[in-house]
């Protein structure tokens, strides 16, 4: 019974913790402009993140070490260094977007300027990273993040034309008002939002924090294979809400305040309160994950002592890295840069960095020296290779498409 509860908790936190500001914004923007015609990209992204998250979780469970430590040891400092630089830059950018997201969500609840909320949000993230236990931190934000199920409920309450939605999703085509380059630019953005690099590093470091062993591989697989796809369904629900309310009115989503309007239309003030709580939990939880990921990646590369299971004094450089990352994020946001723009750029730059993140994981997961009998099977490797081609194409195409379309304008 205890094990079953543990599995249920793991799945629920995986669903609630799946969405972040990148998913919220990108899906709403895409829904308002393309309806559900890019829903297939979410499916491709979910299969990819499931594949590599369970791979990196397995590496950590079998070896007792986080993926990044092994990458440096296995591929050498130069290859791991390229991975580190790309991952760290993207993770700090994503952290900036998440803290901006927390501030924007709190603005919706209070109408107080986001620039006043930004330091408060960053301070809250730092206090939780410093003081809270890893499991409590992950479970609380994941479970409260489940409030975003209200997007799925809203889709039903809005009473849409289901055949039209199904037609958009199953027979995708570029709307007449958009061009093909913009369609593919947003396809890459959605893919980058679903497969953000920090997610796999956080997943493997979290496995070490929670002292997983080979016995825990089954549970981690269930968490990933059930939790992430259900989280992906919430992504599609966000796009569907925007497609139902904004697409026919030709409204383009440019702000977080627009994303909650379909929910208020469907369920009134109660639903609005629930969605704001969900957005705060999702962005705050992702800010914790990205904040920790900055410390994890740098400490694991440089061989510093790391982990929340250690007292901060024993991992001083690990904690200092996270403080510096938080200060940098606050500094960027206080220049009055639009957090939504930061989010849009972070998901596209994530797509650019994907090969640097996922190729090393695939190499390590095939190394018998670390993995023993738990190396990748043929099917996993076949999927892994297909996904390497996809991430490579997305990575190469991202910048030309960004320039060609004026960042999707």
């Amino acid at each position: 019974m205890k094990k079953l509860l543990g599995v249920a908790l793991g799945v629920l936190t995986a669903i609630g913790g799946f969405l972040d500001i990148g998913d919220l914004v990108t899906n709403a923007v895409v829904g308002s402009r393309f309806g559900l015609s890019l829903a297939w990209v979410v499916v491709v992204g979910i299969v990819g993140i499931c594949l590599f998250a369970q791979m990196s979780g397995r590496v950590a469970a079998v070896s007792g070490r986080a993926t990044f430590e092994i990458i440096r040891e296995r591929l050498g400092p130069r290859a791991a260094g390229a991975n580190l630089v790309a991952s760290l830059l993207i993770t700090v950018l994503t952290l900036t977007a998440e803290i901006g997201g927390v501030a924007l969500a709190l603005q919706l609840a209070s109408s107080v300027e986001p620039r006043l909320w930004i330091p408060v949000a960053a301070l809250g993230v730092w206090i939780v990273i410093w003081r809270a236990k890893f499991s409590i931190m992950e479970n609380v934000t994941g479970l409260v993040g489940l409030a975003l199920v209200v997007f799925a409920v809203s889709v039903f309450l809005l009473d849409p034309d289901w055949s039209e939605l199904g037609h958009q999703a199953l027979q995708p085509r570029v709307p007449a008002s958009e061009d093909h380059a913009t369609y593919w630019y947003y396809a890459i953005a959605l893919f980058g939002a679903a497969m953000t690099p920090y997610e796999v590093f956080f997943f493997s470091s979290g496995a070490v924090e929670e002292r997983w062993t080979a016995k825990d591989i089954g549970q981690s697989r269930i968490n990933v294979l059930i939790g992430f796809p259900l989280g992906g369904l919430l992504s599609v629900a966000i796009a569907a809400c925007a497609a139902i309310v904004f697409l026919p009115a030709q409204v383009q989503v440019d702000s977080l305040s627009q994303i909650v309007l379909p929910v208020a239309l469907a369920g009134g003030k109660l639903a609005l309160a629930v969605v704001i709580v969900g957005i705060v939990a999702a962005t705050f939880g992702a800010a914790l994950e990205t904040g920790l990921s900055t410390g994890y990646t740098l400490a694991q590369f440089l061989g510093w002592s790391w982990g929340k299971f250690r007292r901060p004094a024993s991992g001083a450089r690990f904690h200092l890295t996270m403080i510096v990352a938080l200060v940098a994020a606050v500094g960027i946001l206080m220049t009055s840069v639009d957090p939504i723009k930061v989010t849009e750029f972070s998901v596209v730059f994530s797509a650019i960095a994907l090969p640097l993140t996922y190729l090393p994981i695939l190499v390590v997961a095939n190394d018998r020296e670390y993995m023993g009998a738990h190396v990748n099977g043929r099917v996993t490797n076949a999927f892994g290779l297909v996904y390497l081609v996809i991430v490579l194409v997305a990575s190469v195409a991202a910048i030309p498409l960004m320039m060609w379309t004026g960042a999707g304008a």
Partner: protein
Amino acid sequence: MQVRSVPAVVVLAAAMSLGGCAVGGTQTPAQVDEALSDPIDQAASAVATAALTARLLRDDRLTAAAADVAIADALHEVVDARGSLAMFVPPDAESNDRRTTASAAVGLALDAVADARAWVNASSDGPGAADVVAELTDAAAALDAQAGS
């Protein structure tokens, strides 16, 4: 061509290309259409957002705080659209007339969204809910007329 003349040709080509991009330079009709229609679309999207927000607040389905943020964001969009039209340099008299009428429609939208924000914050004895929604509807119609022209 002698090797020494190659840098001069490159510099000349670059100068001519940049000269072609100077303010008031040649613009194709498609570029003029885009420069005038994009701000209209942006303003129309913002007005539709403000109208939805106003209706939700009127029907007690939205809090005043969330409505204020949504309408303030819409206001930023309309201001941005008006700025784009103001920065546009028309290549001929016809384009200038189109810019003037487009600016008037966006100005109407700006007033409507600003009035909606004042109503949300109840900072004046200004218009009521019905007036605000009607003003936003009129502004949307004016923008629609511009988009169709």
